[in-house]
């Protein structure tokens, strides 16, 4: 398991979006995950949730949160 630094989480999300073919041209904390940004569907979000859990031991979705942007995912691990 990797320790959840801002950098490592950001890299994990970025790579995920890339492999899923959903990486927008501009990627950063403000990038929306859904409408107007990466445009993830529910299955892709579930996949991201599993990936984050495997990588960092926990993920926001399993805790009942629904981050809307990359930054909100980062915020879960920073908090």
């Amino acid at each position, binding site marked *: 398991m990797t320790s959840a630094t801002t950098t490592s989480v950001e890299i994990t999300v970025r790579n995920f979006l890339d492999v899923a073919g959903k990486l927008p041209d501009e990627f950063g904390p403000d990038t929306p995950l859904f409408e107007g940004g990466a445009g993830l*569907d*529910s*299955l892709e*979000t*579930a*996949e991201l*949730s*599993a*990936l984050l859990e*495997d990588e960092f031991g926990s993920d926001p*979705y*399993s805790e*009942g949160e629904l981050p809307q942007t990359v930054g909100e995912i980062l915020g879960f691990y920073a908090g």
Partner: protein
Amino acid sequence: MYELLERVAAADPGREAVVTHDTVTTYGDLAADARRVATALHHEGVERFGVVEHDAATVVALLAGAALVGAEACLYPPDDAGTVTSLSTRFDHDVLVSTREDLTAGARLVAPTAWLAGEPEDLPEPAARPHLVLTTGTTGVPRGVRHDWSRLLRGTARVRPADGQRWLLAYGLHQFAGLQVLLHVFAAGATLVAPAPRRPKEGLRAMRELGVTHASATPTYWRFLLAQLRSDGGTVPRLRQVTLGGEAIPGPLLDDLATTFPDASVSQVYAASEFGSTGSMKDRRAGLSVDVLDRGEDAEVDMKIVDGELWIRSRTGMLGYYGEPPVEADGWRPTGDLVEVVGDRILFRGRTSEVINVGGVKVHPLPIEERVGGVPGVDMARVFGRPSALTGAIVALEVVLAPDADPATVKKAIREACSDLPAAAQPRSIKFVDDVSTAGGKILRRLP
């Protein structure tokens, strides 16, 4: 069971019945031991008992002795003491036969030697010959399947004598499949090769060192054995018969086995504790032929499909579950196997209990598993539902890599192989593991 032993013992008592790396037990030995067990049971008034014993020759003597006197034996899985205690409570066994010293059950513990001593006597014919089989726990809590030896033996009516065949025991004797192997081997007057423990690695060693010619095992067992064979680079055993059963059998595995064992005939058996065996398919095609459907009242075994589930009516099947009202012995029963008719074949899609519900879409694991199993670099794959806060469950994979396979390349190949599946069916979690979860030689797709 006793009749089968006695038939051979009368004609050829010195013929090898059960063989391990250290021992040889003849048909004559076994028949005599069975008579001793029957006598002991009769004198002690034991009508039902559990057996927690690994040695095949001892187990066979106990089963045959029980059958001879009409006592109901029940073989327990090789579990820890706590599980054995709870099973003995659940199935009301006051007597347990075992050489294990760690058992603490409330039951009376008897060492097998106690019943193997003494002079055998002639005993009256019993009215019934019950036998209790515990089902494998891949579908939940074990249940006791009530059988009768005379019904079980019906399945051996057409077995031809085959002295000289040496069959590997790859199932636990407590499993119905293990019992089927015993019945077949003894009905044929052949020899049972029973290495301990009953794992693929020891099976392969027994094949090489104890002259195994025939083997029946689950597809999972065969895949592990093939992987072991490839990785140790040792001699390939010259098998004459490869039989698979107990789980759905992937098409590519049949080809793999046929190529690895070119002199062997490859058969598939579809059977279960509840309905006995339905015979074997020798055509090396996945699934069952549609010919098995709607055979009519006169057939020993008949099948039909209701709402995608296979149902069976069999005259070799169970009498009911322990602790439940008896079932109509020759009635129709659901198998729990979901199937799809494709052309002239009935293909297995998964167990009703294994269906993965992904956001409301029901996904069957087997077609995915077959597809992933065919990806180069994948030795074994297990498809299962992984809980997800977002969709209820997602399709998850555990994969055992072939030696020298590159994980990143294989992962990419898996994704590509699954890319044309409906979105809900695509694996969303892929992990590489050293081995996959199994129970009783079968892949565990749903944790009990």
